[in-house]
């Protein structure tokens, strides 16, 4: 009986949220085809301690590969490992997260296996001999339904597209040696520069407060940061105009050529709503817009809009959100 293989992503030895989402995706697929879920986790010695959490999300087997040179993300060694595991069993599919790491690892692994991949999918289902997936393209303006033939079928799941679920799997742990020497990889991560580690990533934050040119200066982003802090579970984003001005780093840019986000709540502060920007956030569940120009395009897609001066409205909203968070 065919099974489903899934790569469980870690950073600094800890499983990431996307790992549970990927395992849940694998579980859903395995249920459709009547197979088991086999997870692969790689890292420095001790990473196998994550097996219990993977089992709680539906992993029936956890392959643990431990090596000192796997402490940081080791692209070549991980690709070789997943390709080797995929070849060692009867697998209908191999699942990855379409995170920064998965975007690198998944196509690499597919090429190792001399096969193709569907990346960044938002839904998937078995259809006869094929896997049918959806994948947003054209900066989110077109939904592409793709047919993936061949077995195993490799695909990566967009972060947030599948909600992690707890389902108890058998969780049998098996240590596997790395198929190639991880210390011989040519591509080496020499350091990881994390910003404020308490800072939520745009791809993972339930709330995003984002600022546009209407804020007029880098200093005024404090308004946005204060509102984000009031929510407590929010990340700060920006428009391209803002990152081009250097008010915020490029990595904060939300839009066509930046990050594509879909949080539960997106608060657009002083953002007019250029098509370029809307492409990156239009799939947010709820959109709030605050802008002084009532004709701004952002109001056409905002669930709740306030027409007004951001320097007056945002501090008032920050206080009200703080009060709501405290008072329940």
């Amino acid at each position, binding site marked *: 009986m065919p099974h489903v293989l899934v790569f469980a992503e870690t950073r600094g030895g800890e499983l990431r949220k996307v790992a549970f989402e990927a395992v849940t995706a694998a579980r859903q697929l395995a249920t459709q085809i009547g197979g088991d879920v086999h997870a692969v986790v790689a890292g420095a010695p001790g990473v196998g301690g994550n097996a219990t959490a993977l089992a709680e999300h539906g992993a029936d087997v956890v392959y643990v590969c431990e090596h000192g040179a796997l402490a*940081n993300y080791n692209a070549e060694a991980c690709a070789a490992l997943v390709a080797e595991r995929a070849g060692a069993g009867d697998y209908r599919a191999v699942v990855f997260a379409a*995170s*920064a*790491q998965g*975007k*690198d690892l998944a*196509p*690499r692994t*597919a*090429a*190792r296996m*001399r*096969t*193709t*991949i569907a*990346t*960044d999918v938002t839904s998937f289902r078995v259809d006869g001999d094929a896997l049918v997936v959806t994948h*947003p*393209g*054209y900066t*989110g*303006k*077109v*939904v*592409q*339904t*793709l047919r993936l033939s061949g077995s195993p079928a490799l695909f990566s799941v967009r972060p947030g597209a599948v909600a992690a679920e707890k389902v108890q799997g058998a969780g049998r742990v098996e240590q596997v040696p790395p198929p190639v020497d991880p210390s011989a990889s*040519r*591509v080496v*991560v*020499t350091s*990881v*520069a994390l*910003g404020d580690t308490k800072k*939520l990533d745009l791809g*993972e934050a*339930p709330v995003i407060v984002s600022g546009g040119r209407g804020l007029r200066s880098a200093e005024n982003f404090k308004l946005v940061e204060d509102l984000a802090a009031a929510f407590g579970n929010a990340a700060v984003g920006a428009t391209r105009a803002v990152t081009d001005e250097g008010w915020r780093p*490029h990595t904060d840019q939300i839009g*066509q*050529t*930046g990050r594509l986000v879909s949080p*539960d709540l997106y608060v657009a502060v002083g953002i007019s709503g250029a*098509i370029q920007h809307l492409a990156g956030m239009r799939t947010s*569940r*709820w959109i*709030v817009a605050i802008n002084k120009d009532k004709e701004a395009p*952002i109001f056409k*897609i905002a*669930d*709740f*809009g*306030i*027409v*007004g001066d951001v320097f*007056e*409205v945002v501090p*008032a*909203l920050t206080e*009200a959100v703080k009060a*709501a968070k405290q008072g329940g």
Partner: protein
Amino acid sequence: MKIAVCIKRVPEMDVAFKIAPSGTAIDETGLKWDISDFDGYAVEAALQMTEKSGAGEVHVICLGPDVVQETLRKALSMGCARAVQLKVDKVPFDPFAIATALAAELKDGGYDLVMFGKMSIDSASGAVGLMVADILGVPMVQGCSKLEIADGKGTARREIEGGGEIVSFPLPAAVSIDEGIARPRYPSLKGIMSAKKKPLETKPAQLGEIRLTVEKMELPAGRAAGRIVGEGSAAVPELVRLLKTEAKVL
């Protein structure tokens, strides 16, 4: 240093797309086309590297029908030395099929560095560059936002959630380019004139087997029309009430 940059011709994105009657493609009527955004950054970064070192040249490769020659000419007018069209009637969706054709062209080219955009902005797979590198057997860094090449070695920064990874690798290698590295230049008049005399070869593309195809394209479900809650800070209490009771995010 000899650099190859693989580019794709894509429609400009600042339009409302329509779906073609086939239901498996966009309606291309009236669309303007150009080098895919990230591929343009790769071309610019490659040109800057050869200009800075004063040695080497940049070759540009594009897979597609004859209309891609226009896109290749633009890259030549920016300063690339030579262009190759890998001819197919229609660009397939399958990234491995495309990577197979690009790798066949690149393998005997003697390139120190092969560059890509981190993804094409239309199909948005982000897989081709990584796959080409694997077929060629060279190290690959995906999504570089910074790149330095010196003494046969490269150092790059990749953006990851909440930060960046600093990565080192030996040449020959492949890299794909993220935003922030370099804004593509506009071709100068001199560049446009000289591009007409630069070599542009056309060869049949040796595509790999196609296992991933487009079954359907559709426009995403639209959002309901927007709603203005009120004006100024007086509207804040009502907004907070809606966030609590309707959106349930507070």
